């Protein structure tokens, strides 16, 4: 590991000033469940690590504007166990509860979950974010891509975004608040993510010196929500595909829908095709299945991951069927 400087901020202003204006020269430490292993494995080598855990205002979950404001330092466990979240946003609570295992959930934070780096095994073995050989060839396309993207995979990025919270938050139309040198800005979580075009790009729109401070989840009255993870092991395993849905009902019919998949594309993948397929439908096996089929419109396999197309369909279908069983928020 490269020797680095450790700095601890107590205010977000301080954090910004401690961060570097050059991306990658400084990294943020919150729960530490990802950044420390990235550093130990020499995948990132910041000159300074900025601890933000002491910034009090980045914690806590509270009511705001009819919805909830969730601080970036809220742990996954707090989120999963929060009565307010469980009651109003069961799909979000579910997504949180399924993440990794208890040890990770007690350390990892909401902000960290949104900003964590991909698990692509070429990236993690030192071949860069895009998993390329020295001559720029994609090791992913030529190699073992069983866990890679089936959507948004026209290249050169083929990894899947690992966040389990982002699909649930996007389904709920949540916004993310960011603090940086220019002050505060906020944008829909959906727009927070971007597919990198080069190895030096990142997977989101955060600029150097910017910090995610909180997430704003709007009220979800009349919305049925659920998250379904297809995971090989019962616990402590990454999803092979995940879907989160928020279905605004008008009586027994769907008035509008938001359907977002995780672990299928380099960004959390919102499927308007699936959403359209649900509008005006009642929730049953047939409509859920049709939405699942619609969700993988345009999906293509990379050679070893065709099964993930099936898993994505099933995740969408099962999330919808679970949501159908929920009492309305």
């Amino acid at each position, binding site marked *: 590991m490269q020797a680095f400087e450790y700095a601890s901020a107590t205010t977000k202003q301080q954090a910004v000033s401690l961060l570097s204006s050059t991306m990658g020269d400084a990294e943020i430490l919150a729960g530490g469940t990802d950044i420390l292993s990235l550093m130990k494995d020499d995948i990132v080598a910041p000159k300074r690590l900025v601890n933000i855990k002491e910034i009090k205002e980045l914690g806590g979950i509270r009511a705001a504007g009819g919805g909830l404001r969730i601080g970036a330092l809220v742990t996954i466990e707090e989120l999963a166990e929060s009565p307010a979240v469980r009651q109003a946003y069961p799909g979000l609570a579910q997504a949180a509860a399924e993440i990794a295992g208890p040890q990770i959930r007690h350390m990892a934070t909401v902000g960290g979950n949104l900003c964590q780096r991909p698990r692509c*095994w*070429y990236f993690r073995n030192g*071949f860069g974010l895009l998993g390329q050989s020295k001559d720029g060839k994609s*090791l992913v396309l030529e*190699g073992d891509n069983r866990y890679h993207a089936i959507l948004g995979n026209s290249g050169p990025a083929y990894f899947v975004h690992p966040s389990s919270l982002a699909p649930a938050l996007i389904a709920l139309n949540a916004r993310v608040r960011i603090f940086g040198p220019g002050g505060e800005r906020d944008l829909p979580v959906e727009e927070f993510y971007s597919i990198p075009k080069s190895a030096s790009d990142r997977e989101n729109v955060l600029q150097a010196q910017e910090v995610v401070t909180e997430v704003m989840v709007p009220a979800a009255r009349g919305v049925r929500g659920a998250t379904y993870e297809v995971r*090989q*092991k*019962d616990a402590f395993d990454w999803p092979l595909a995940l879907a989160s849905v928020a279905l605004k009902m008008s009586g027994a019919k769907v008035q509008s829908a938001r359907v977002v998949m995780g672990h299928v594309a380099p960004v959390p993948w919102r499927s308007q095709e699936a959403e359209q397929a649900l509008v005006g439908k009642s929730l049953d096996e047939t409509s859920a299945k049709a939405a699942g089929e619609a969700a993988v419109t345009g999906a293509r396999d990379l050679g070893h991951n065709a099964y993930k197309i099936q898993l994505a369909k099933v995740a969408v279908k099962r999330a919808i069927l679970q949501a159908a069983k929920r009492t309305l928020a």
Partner: protein
Amino acid sequence: MPDYKWPEAAKRTLIGKRITRLDGPDKVSGRAKYTYDIKRPGMLYGKILRSPHAHAKIVSIDTSAAEKMAGVMAVKIIQGPGKEILWAGDEIAAVAAVDEPTAEDAIRAIKVEYERLPHQVIDTNPKVPEAKTPVEETKGDPEKAFKEAGVVSEGLYGSNVMTHCCLETHGSISEWQGDKLLVHISTQNVSGVAGQMAGPLKVPATDIHLKMDHIGGGFGSKFGPDRWGIETALISKMAGGKPVKIMLERNAEQAVAGSRPSAYARVKVAAKKDGTLTAWQSESWGSGGPSGGGQPPLPYVFVFPNHKKHHTAIATNVGPTRAWRAPNHPQGCLITMAALEDLAAQLNMDPLDFFLKNIEMTGQRAENYREELLKGAELIQWKKNWHPRGDKTAGPIKRGMGLSLHTWGGAGHESNCDLTIQPDGSVEVKMGTQDLGVGTRTALAIVAADTLGLPLNAITVRIGDNDYPASGASGGSTTIGGISSSTRRAAVDARDQLFARVAPVLNAKPEELEAVGGTIRVAGTPARSLTWKQACSKLGGMPLTVRGKQLRNQSDLTNSGVGGIQMADVSVDTETGIVRINKMVAVQDCGLIINRKLAESQCYGALIMGISYALYEEKVMDQNTGLMLNPNMEFYRLAGSGDIGELVVHMMTGPGYDDRGVIGLGEPPVVSPGAVISNAIANAIGVRVSTMPFTPARVLKALEQKGGSNASV
């Protein structure tokens, strides 16, 4: 002649009972110290530079920058210019430094120039280079048998390379005290490792003192010091003899510290219309390293009148295989039992009836298997739950049942035991053996205490040190047979010598005495007795020390050859391909059981490890880079407590079992899980998933191909 034979059932006070392991409290409280936990005064940390290439020649190495770094105490080239490297992760250089980060930095400062050579790391194609001449064997007249067969089933079955994945990685701490070496090492071979270090270190083995109290898993991968263990001692010497610790990083552990070879086979099996097996044919191949893998025993357990088999060992540029818990048996078992179950399905026969019908082909343990199959069927309610291939119930979740048979040797190894009785009545057992977590300590105490008529806590057990009398390596399920036999002999001799001392006091002949309930008495006459302490005080000033020896192939107390059967009840989500274990049953014999609780525990552990390899474990290699892609515990998955379902273990005991003597148990129960799970999946979904681990991708692919060209299976 002393009478060493095991006490008859009515007289066993501890042997065969359910006894909690003695070191349990130390382990759960963290007091137990593993090699990984050991920190010696002034200890340095070592690191190994490993090859990033799967096949290359070393052109040059420049260690000058590393040598100049502050805090670096030793830099040593392990493989220098001109050496050909055959797998990624092979050892190139070693350093010792004052702390781990410095050692890590020093490793990175070493510049190595490689000439890259073509590599092959994928072994699913039998046409990649042969490691050695293929083996072919024919028996009877298979051609004729296939021609005359009532039914023939064909299939492809396989098992990928997987790793040992020891939770405590390999490694040691070496320090020199003058010309003598002290080594703490994570090993399955406390008495044998010094002899392996002596040559490369050029010191007499008698000057190497080796210790280990607890180990976090070996599974067949920790019999030697390994090159990194030798280098640890050498860089310690370079650093003035200071203690140096090298424990492998997780990624090195996964990449180079042991793997189980793959095995793939195209199989053809023939039977008469009534299900009687007549012929076997297999074309198999497999690997796991430059010298190929082992050859799976095919056909497994069942001896066919006609067979033809051909095996090719494939050379790959992958960290070499090592013995993995029952070497080659899980692969042979999977291939055979899956092929046989496919044949039964083709005959529309319940595999239980089919296996019973052919059970005589298993040879001398046929009756044992028959009894075990019937017991297993009762425990899993086979007749009630089994259905013909393909669960016809509605919904995506399909349930299925599978079964399998396995065998193993397990006779005791050579072992020496020193048992000392002090005049104050305290008793000590010393042996250069190791407790791999299976309860060796507890077993020694049970045998000594039972023989001496004492409670368990009256025995002090000292193991894990090569200053103690030598005992065999823990491999091949040989430990329990060896260590229980040598301890029995020591305890019987010690007891008889004590009888001789106290007989005059009791006005009896030594042969009239017995050691029961903490007393020495005239047999059956409590009125003529001495307490243990009173009896021992007759020893005078000198403690009594007796050496018990168990020789190789000495078979009065230990034996070889066990049979076991397993059955599984699984659910398969046909929409996701995810397999869940509902229940697994293991019925196992192992001769006379020393500790029933820990024998059962061995079987539970084996089932869990088996579920893990059947569903999750695969060493994923990348052909482009030549690297292992999942040298971690993230995408190298191990089963967790939520993945194992209900596990039921039944040990066969009593007449016909106990009288065979003590037989090892570490390996047999881990042989069948892959086969039973494979068979249960096929029974659930109506199609064979050919290759293990049975991942969602493979299950879905098999389902997709169902009804295609392979419709008969």
